């Protein structure tokens, strides 16, 4: 993805990829541009733009649900600095929930 470099006006934004099962709560979009300095900022911005996503991603206590993982580019943020992981312009954040289909 070279978008931000191709379109300088998008610099300062990261992109969060929305997986198929959650797109219905994100205005049917495949990706959402978000602003912020950390993964937590980016996720808050996403939730602010699409409040319906919140209960699908977080428990009532505000904890990320255990069948959802968040990746910064190709790294699981659990193995970086979790929510506090800094993000840079043009980063790709992925929400990766478990899916079980096979038949």
């Amino acid at each position, binding site marked *: 993805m070279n978008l931000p470099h191709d379109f300088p006006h998008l610099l300062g934004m990261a992109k969060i990829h929305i997986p198929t099962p959650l797109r219905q709560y994100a205005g049917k979009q495949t990706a959402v541009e978000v602003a912020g300095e950390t993964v937590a900022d980016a996720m808050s911005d996403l939730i602010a733009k699409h409040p319906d996503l919140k209960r699908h991603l977080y428990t009532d206590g505000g904890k990320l649900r255990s069948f959802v993982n968040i990746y910064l580019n190709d790294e699981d943020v659990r193995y970086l600095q979790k929510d506090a992981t800094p993000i840079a312009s043009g980063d790709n954040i992925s929400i990766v929930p*478990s899916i079980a289909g*096979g*038949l």
Partner: protein
Amino acid sequence: MAIATETAPTATLNKDEILRYSRHLIMPEVGMDGQQKLKAAKVLCIGTGGLGSPLALYLAAAGVGTLGLVDFDVVDYTNLQRQIIHTTADVGRKKLDSAAEKLEAINPFVEIKKFDTRLSSENALEIFRDFDIIADGTDNFPTRYLVNDACVLSGKPNVYGSIFRFEGQASVFATEEGPCYRCLYPEPPPPGLVPSCAEGGVLGILPGLVGVMQATEVVKLILGAGDPLIGRLLLIDALGMKFRELKLRKNPDCPACGTRPTITKLIDYNEFCGIRGEEEKPVSSGIPEIQVEELKRRLDAGDDLFVLDVREPHEYQICNIGGHLIPLNDLPKRVSELDSSREIVAHCKMGGRSAKAVAFLQQSGFKKVHNLTGGIIAWADRVDPKVPKY
């Protein structure tokens, strides 16, 4: 990593097999040595459905010597859009018999072992015992966790694929050095939050793509060739035709494969996944239910009933019973279209979404709302056979 090399008996090829596998034999990455490894290998396919069809077909054609199949299901018409091992003439037959017949027709040199059962905590380790590699082509969370834990406990790689609509995931779990499924997802979602393919649909070609990736990984593991998907999760987006790869790490705290595992034997996976009894039954109690026969009788009698259809517009196009269409997700913002003084019967495809709609309407102050048990499928089964099922 080569799975079969050390313990495998030497499997020699006869003249017919040499001709059959010619295109493998002339390739240095396979060759006679590799083809003999394939013949000596024993691979277990869990499920002969969407993923299992292409997986088993290609493994049989490639010359994997022993193929185990586990399935308890019967072929139905809705399977044919993607489960390419089964044909129209097989509808009503056991998937196991239908699949074994095709595999034997493709390659009579393959030994097929059939397990006519639902994989369970009681039988999984016993079934896995005689196989080198397990390929998971199931369709539900309890079986996914069961396959993973049984692979970790028996030290066998779990070649994983899963699909939803037009999106897939593939990886190789539970090798000695690599992560397992629980390292990625310690716990499953609560029932009902993530729709199954039966509820959400699946692009028929997608299990073909993902199942062939699983077959490729199985063959690579047997040959000890290339870079297997160990420690990598491949994300497949068929609509965008985009492939992305994420790093997976072995979690030292993993309950199954970590340094201090707490899962030392197979558990009750339905309980672990929060499933009690039938999945399709509405989970909430206190939802007033109405049976399709009762609805039909009351409509015929001219009772003032308002039928609310909470499915999606594309489902309404397939079939409908004349209900007022408000998709479940739109209900909160369109609730003003409903008259709370009238008696309302909500329905969906099978009764799950409409139960949620009824619960929502009750919370919004509606007193006379019912859920149509079994949805429009029950209506088609028991009231009007002209209504198409999907």
